[in-house]
């Protein structure tokens, strides 16, 4: 960029010498935005953190998907009964629970993009958690992305094993998405 500025400057000096100064909008000085970015402006409390009083001391949670039962291969222990999540909590991981809480809050206040982002973050931690896929399907439904809603719900069903309640909720999303698409 400095090269072009320098070049422009020289040309301009020559033109100015002929008394033709001033109208030089063609030169590359014109740019768009103020340059200095403000990183310091961003210091609100992290929304994803839950209040400390909900916890008692340091929580050590087994990483989901590493339990003894789940380490058996399908051949050794058929037929596998799915990565069952208890209906009480959508995950054993505090990190995932915190993200789901955050996504829920964002979703309730209408920040659907932020809710989806939090759910995608949760999926990076537990990619095979059917409940998270269901919640993402639900957000897409609310965003009017019916095709995605149906596909994500199908994905959730695929991971839901014999969690019939979750399967039914997903089927409801698919039905609604299809209805909207038919309209």
């Amino acid at each position, binding site marked *: *960029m400095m*090269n072009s500025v*320098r070049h422009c*400057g*020289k040309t*301009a000096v020559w033109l*100015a*010498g002929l*008394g033709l*100064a*001033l109208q*030089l909008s063609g030169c590359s*000085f014109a*740019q*768009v*935005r103020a*340059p*200095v*970015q*403000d*990183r*310091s402006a*961003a210091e*609100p409390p*992290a929304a*994803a*953190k839950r209040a400390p009083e909900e916890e008692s001391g*340091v*929580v*050590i*949670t087994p*990483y*989901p*998907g590493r339990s003894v039962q789940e*380490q058996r*291969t*399908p*051949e050794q222990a*058929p*037929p*596998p009964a799915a990565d069952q999540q208890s209906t009480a909590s959508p995950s054993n*991981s*505090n*990190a995932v629970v915190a993200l789901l809480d955050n996504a829920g809050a964002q979703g309730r206040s209408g920040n659907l*993009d*932020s809710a*989806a982002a*939090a759910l995608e*973050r949760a*999926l*990076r*931690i537990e*990619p095979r958690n059917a409940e998270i896929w269901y919640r993402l399907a639900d957000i897409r439904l609310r965003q009017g992305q019916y095709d*995605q809603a149906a*596909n994500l719900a*199908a*994905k959730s069903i*695929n991971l839901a*094993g014999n969690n019939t309640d979750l*399967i039914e909720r997903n089927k409801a999303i698919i039905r609604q998405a299809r209805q909207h698409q038919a309209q």
Partner: protein
Amino acid sequence: MPRKSSRSRTRRRRGAPFITLFVLGLFIIAGYVAYLDHTVRTQFEGKRWALPARVYARPLELFAGAPLSPAQLAAELADLGYAPSPRLDSPGTFQRNADEFRFITRAFRFWDTAEPSLPVRAVFEQDKLVALENFKNGAPLDLVRLDPAPIGGIYPAHNEDRVLVQLKEVPPLLVQALIAVEDHRYYDHHGIDPISIARALWSNMRAGATVQGGSTLTQQLAKNFYLNPDRTLWRKTNEAIIALLLEYHYSKDEILEAYLNEIFLGQDGQRAIHGFGMASYFYFGRPLNELKLPQFALMVSLVRGASYYDPRRHAQRALTQRNRVLDVMAANKVISAQQAKEAQRAPLGVIAKAPHGASSYPAFMDLLRRQLQRDYKEEDLTSEGLQIFSTLDPQIQRNAERALSSRVAQLEKQFAIPTGRLEGAALVTNSENGEVLAVVGGRDARYSGFNRALDAQRHIGSLIKPAVYLTALAMPQRYTLATLLQDEPVTFQNPGGQPWTPQNYDRQYHGAVPLHAALAHSYNVPTARLGLDVGVANVLGTLKKLGVERDFPAYPSVLLGAIELTPAEVTQTYQTLASGGFRVPLRAIREVLTAKGEPLQRYELSITQAFDPAPVFLLTNALQEVVSAGTARSLKSQLPAQLTVAGKTGTTDDLRDSWFAGFSGQHVAVVWLGRDDNKPTGLSGATGALKVWGDIIRATATQPLQRTAPGNIEYARIDPQTLRRVAADCRDAVDLPFISGSVPPESGPCASQAPGQVDWFREIFR
């Protein structure tokens, strides 16, 4: 021109030439100053600099239970330039005590939220993060996101690189050092400093040459910002006018801030390092606000000559100059003599290798740029200072690079391949969300030329077979894993071509082979028969649904992989298998923010169900058998026993291409080895690419493959002799998954094992 000169001749004849010239002269000078004024203000108030887009790696997420080793956290903190510190008093510092880390994170603004700076204590047990808490108040922390490592920028051909800083975030000590050394009367002059000029003139006259500059900071800015570096009187005059104009229009602080961002402080190939914000990363690998006195002094000494005092090439010279700067600071009472002395004892502290400008990961950046170019103009990418949050996992990337380059060198020796001829490529993705974690474009991962991962189109050989078998398994009335296929000599007539007699890799025929075993052992003959039964066009249709966007002619030879795909295309197809039949476009970008941190665009997760989950489940079962008992069984010696994976070897005619594509419960990885000149290498998929694949997966924290059986999958106990269903207590029988309605009929009593018969089922568990 002729018209003008004739007019002035006319005027001269009228008898007032002198006045005319004088007025014209005044007009020119006034016009020129007005022009300079316009230039100065336009540039100073507009966007001053073209800022390259800055690309970040994925941020590391820390949480109790994370599959992360202490070594991996240490590597991440090193990437981020966190400094070991006994006092642990500022962001970007850490302490490690065996399996326990304490560190203070940096605040960082992400797409969704701003992460505050946090004092974190992290405790590991083996290769797992087991506890995470705030070490100041002991409160547990559910989830901590570290700041992301910058991995490169997107530049025009010749470029300036800078990280903009605001005056208020620049440590005062740096500013004081700069003023003390370069222009100690900065706050007292109006752009030019007659006292300094006089002094400079005097010493220049005595020396008979220009040896000393009397330039103020404002003049230096004027020179750098608006003018070329020639030392001519004309340039000096312009510089002085511009300096006065700058001081007339703007405050001292505004000028100082521009100076701090403009000044040239180093060169890295075609990349010029401008401003203290960038120089801080370039020399010390850390942000400016984490540096201390000796580092400030070193950077200030570079103002006089960034290449002459280059601390990497002329360490002694740089050290001397830095200490001189410290002396001047002490003499100007910016620091005490004691502080100067202490700082002078400090080493230069420069990181050995400058962070790569364009990127240390050219193959990944290539993919990222191609994806960005769908949505952004090249000009915006190189000038708007966009912040791009990528999906790259630097640790997996380095594992993949290391695995490829060291195995390739070893295989060259082992298979007598001319040194330097064996090439390769590798990709690693997240198996469920399609995020690309690593791309290696060749054995020299730093080389940014031919990107084999994206651009090498090679025959895929047996990597096509899952598409053949998936097409069949999607028809449960006709095919199950237990269907017997005939492995006997057969000849097909290519339409309008020569007859085609497929051969097995081992040049033998194996009689009647169950479908799952034919895939696990990669037998060509039964695969070709099966493919012709289901139809070549249908197999190509399956390939398309798996994610290959190009079309191929429906020749029978397609069934054995006579089509050319890139490693990236292969990755896309295996991604669809790994995620249970859901196609997920490979993504290298998560979010794009403006230079100011405003959200611009999010590349969201988007999936398409391409297949019914049940046949994909059956296929994956057979692909696991490839590893447990088939062509990839040598992998077992490379991986821990509990790490179940699935995959497929690929070998092409005369051993020109060696492939392995496979997935764990969390990652998809594809490796290709071969020669750029397409000559044979002597490597099969199992002896070549599979080794690299095993190295990559072993070094990566990944989860075993666990699939959830879809609702319409039933397990049945099958007699390996009769391939019929038998009673549950049959000792020699095995459990095999079937799609509901396709379970073989029950045959009653257990069959006995006939001697000499190959037991295709037993070997699954070898």
